[in-house]
């Protein structure tokens, strides 16, 4: 009995799958913007293009500065989220014979560096609930 398309799909290169997903995304975007181009009415008057400020003329510049203390959110984000991104692909190779041990040592160094940052944040009391 032929095992047909199911077997053929598993032989498809994973890069082809990723390419297919990217292509689907691009097609979706182009289709949406294209439909907008052929359907949407547009009337760009001067008043319509002014900056929104609750119905009055906008004053001042559009640039607003945030306080530098919020850098701590970026710092904790790097510690938790960016390093999680590197942990996921490591999980796929840790059991392989040629990469497993080497990757363990390398990831140990990487996690050590990240943990120094986390320890600093803990010492500063940043991990206590605000």
């Amino acid at each position, binding site marked *: 009995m032929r095992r047909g398309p199911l077997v053929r799909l598993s032989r498809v290169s994973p890069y082809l799958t990723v390419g297919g997903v990217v292509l689907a995304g691009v097609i979706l975007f182009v289709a949406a913007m294209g439909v*907008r*181009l*052929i*359907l*949407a*009415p*547009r*009337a*760009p*008057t*001067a*008043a*319509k293009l*002014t900056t*929104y400020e*609750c*119905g*009055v003329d906008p004053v001042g510049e559009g640039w607003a500065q945030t306080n530098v203390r919020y850098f701590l959110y970026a710092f904790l984000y790097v510690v938790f989220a960016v390093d999680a991104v590197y942990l996921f692909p490591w999980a796929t190779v840790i059991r392989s014979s040629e990469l497993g041990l080497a990757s363990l040592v390398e990831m140990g160094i990487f996690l050590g560096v990240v943990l120094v940052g986390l320890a600093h944040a803990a010492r500063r009391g940043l991990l206590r609930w605000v």
Partner: protein
Amino acid sequence: MPSVGLVNDDAPRPIKIVLNWGRRYSLWVFNFGLACCAIEFIAASMARHDFIRLGVIPFAPGPRQADLMVVSGTVSDKMAAAIRRLYDQMPEPKYVISFGSCANSGGPYWDSYCVTKGVDQLIPVDVYVPGCPPRPEALLQGIIRLQEKIASESLSTKAIRAKYAGSRHAAAGEVTRPLLTKPQLTASQAGDQS
């Protein structure tokens, strides 16, 4: 130049029916609540007289995300400029419901020194909902009437150009403001300035 996309202009009737169907059941309302009628509008958006079941999503964050503007309440002369500016900032296609007698024609303040007698002096209105204040069911009927109106409409480049013809694209201030010139200083005045 204002224009409508090709498909909208030259589409056969069945396509226009489908597009009108999509447009009338996906209105996002920019509530311009000014006075007591705003309370009735909020009541119409709540559980008992829900207008979300008509497809109208309430409380758009701003004019740029809205296609229906419900002017509910008394329009004072001071507020008139803001109403005009916010209507201008809404993207096409846009609709206006005038809710309550103050927005229709000034209502009980028909003789006041500072009330704009009817929001249709500022912006084109599609549906008028009379009442002081109208019941929430009246707003529901107004929305249904607007949806019937949208079902029978046909967007075209000619219509949108007629809407923005001449000086209708600007409020009075924007038309007259560039006409002012700074007064020329005489030599003695210029000497005082420096």
